[in-house]
């Protein structure tokens, strides 16, 4: 389909952002009563909620690992979160995203402390606008901290992409639909190590380097937002 839309005009994107600008992000910690840790996150038009249960004995028993905890991240999109109603239940896309998020989280959670246990992370996308897996993983990171899970770092994710031969940060909806590359990345901000990396589209090696660099820069900015939100919840007026 020919892209009739001009995604970039005079260096400004459809929503007025510069090529290296993030959409608005808002994070709230500890929003659910039953979950042991939780986080509500808004990122552009995305609204996601993440909840953590555990560590608890893994069931069924045959899934238990005698040496460490297993991390079960479940990413799900609500039926009403997209333009055309999505049939409830996990589809292949959701299951793949759940897997790559679980693997990213397994890296930074200190799983050896909880043999035979599972740490269950639930990510629900309530309102979707491109970049839901990054929003989900970022919210999951905060929910894990809120649940008191021991971790090496607080994971964070961000995507970069290409629209009309320009590498840009944090694709919005039309950019995701009509752009020519999408690169979601998750990192451990303390070390810079990459925990999640996917790409589809077409990038030259130089474009890839630029995009990766941009995405990682975006991750660091968002990492600050995560940390501020956590401190705001726990270091409120509790002194004196």
């Amino acid at each position, binding site marked *: 389909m020919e892209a009739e839309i001009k995604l970039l005009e005079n260096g400004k994107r459809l929503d007025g952002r510069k090529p290296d600008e993030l959409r608005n992000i808002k994070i709230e910690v500890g929003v659910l009563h039953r979950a*042991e*840790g939780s986080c509500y996150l808004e990122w552009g038009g995305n609204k996601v909620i993440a909840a953590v249960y*555990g*560590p*608890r*004995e893994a069931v069924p028993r045959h899934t238990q690992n*005698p040496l460490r905890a297993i991390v079960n991240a479940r990413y799900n999109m609500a039926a009403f979160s997209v333009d055309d109603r999505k049939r409830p239940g996990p589809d292949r896309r959701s299951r793949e995203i759940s897997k790559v998020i679980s693997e990213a989280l397994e890296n930074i959670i*200190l799983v050896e402390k*909880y*043999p*035979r*246990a599972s740490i269950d992370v639930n990510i629900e996308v309530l309102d979707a606008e491109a970049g839901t897996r990054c929003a989900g993983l970022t919210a999951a990171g905060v929910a894990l*901290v*809120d*649940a*008191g*899970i*021991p*971790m*090496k*770092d*607080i994971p964070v994710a961000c995507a970069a992409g290409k629209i009309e031969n320009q590498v840009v940060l944090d694709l919005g909806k039309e950019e995701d639909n009509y752009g020519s590359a999408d690169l979601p990345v998750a990192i*451990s*901000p*303390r070390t810079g190590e990459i925990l999640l990396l996917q790409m589809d589209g077409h990038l030259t090696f130089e474009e890839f380097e630029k995009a990766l660099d941009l995405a990682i820069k975006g991750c660091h900015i968002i990492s600050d937002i995560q*940390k501020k939100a*956590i*401190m705001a919840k*726990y*270091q409120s007026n*509790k*002194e*004196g």
Partner: protein
Amino acid sequence: MAQEKREIVIPSQLLGEIKNKKAGKGTFVENGKIYAEVLGVLNLNQNYINVIPLKGRYDPVEKDFVIGIVQEAMASSWLVDINAAYPALLHVNEVPWDVEFGETERYLNHGDSIMAKVLQVDQEKKLQITLKDRNLYKIKGGQIIAVEPSKVPRIIGKKGSMITLLKKYTKCRMFVGQNGRIWIDGDEDGVKKVIDTINLIEDEALSYGLTNRIEELLKKDAKDVH
């Protein structure tokens, strides 16, 4: 040494170096540096850097007193939920009764609450508890509430000061399990007052002068009632 300031730290926060201090609870070491591994309160003493977790399930320690809820009665043991990552095992040899094989249900059943002690935590985190102690028993009557295990020291208070206050002004019997479960027994108003006060302590656990403020509140209410 007393803590001057209650500082909150988060996972990955740099706290110090192993050439100066030892890495204590709630921390991990990488390339000679000590980092926080969990959301918690920084606790420094002469030799160690510790982080006391603010949230999370109970981390069982041998000899801790805990309140457990029986999940399942098996042939010669019971599985008990003690709000840890794993259920605890209570063996028939660790109860004050003479239990025949297969007769466990006659003594303790699903839903029963017990005051127990942590007997053993092994390498694989398998937990065992015991009821063999003068102070341990099956709980009858009263109410059980749950708080974050990290708040238990605040609810007990320095040398039991807070819990003594609560008992004094509400005339309730109370027992605080290290695993965050609290048993309360008394008249309706007393129990409600204890629960309300505990909720207040939970919200304000990090403040200073809390014990005095709670005492004032309890005194005031006691005067109003007559």
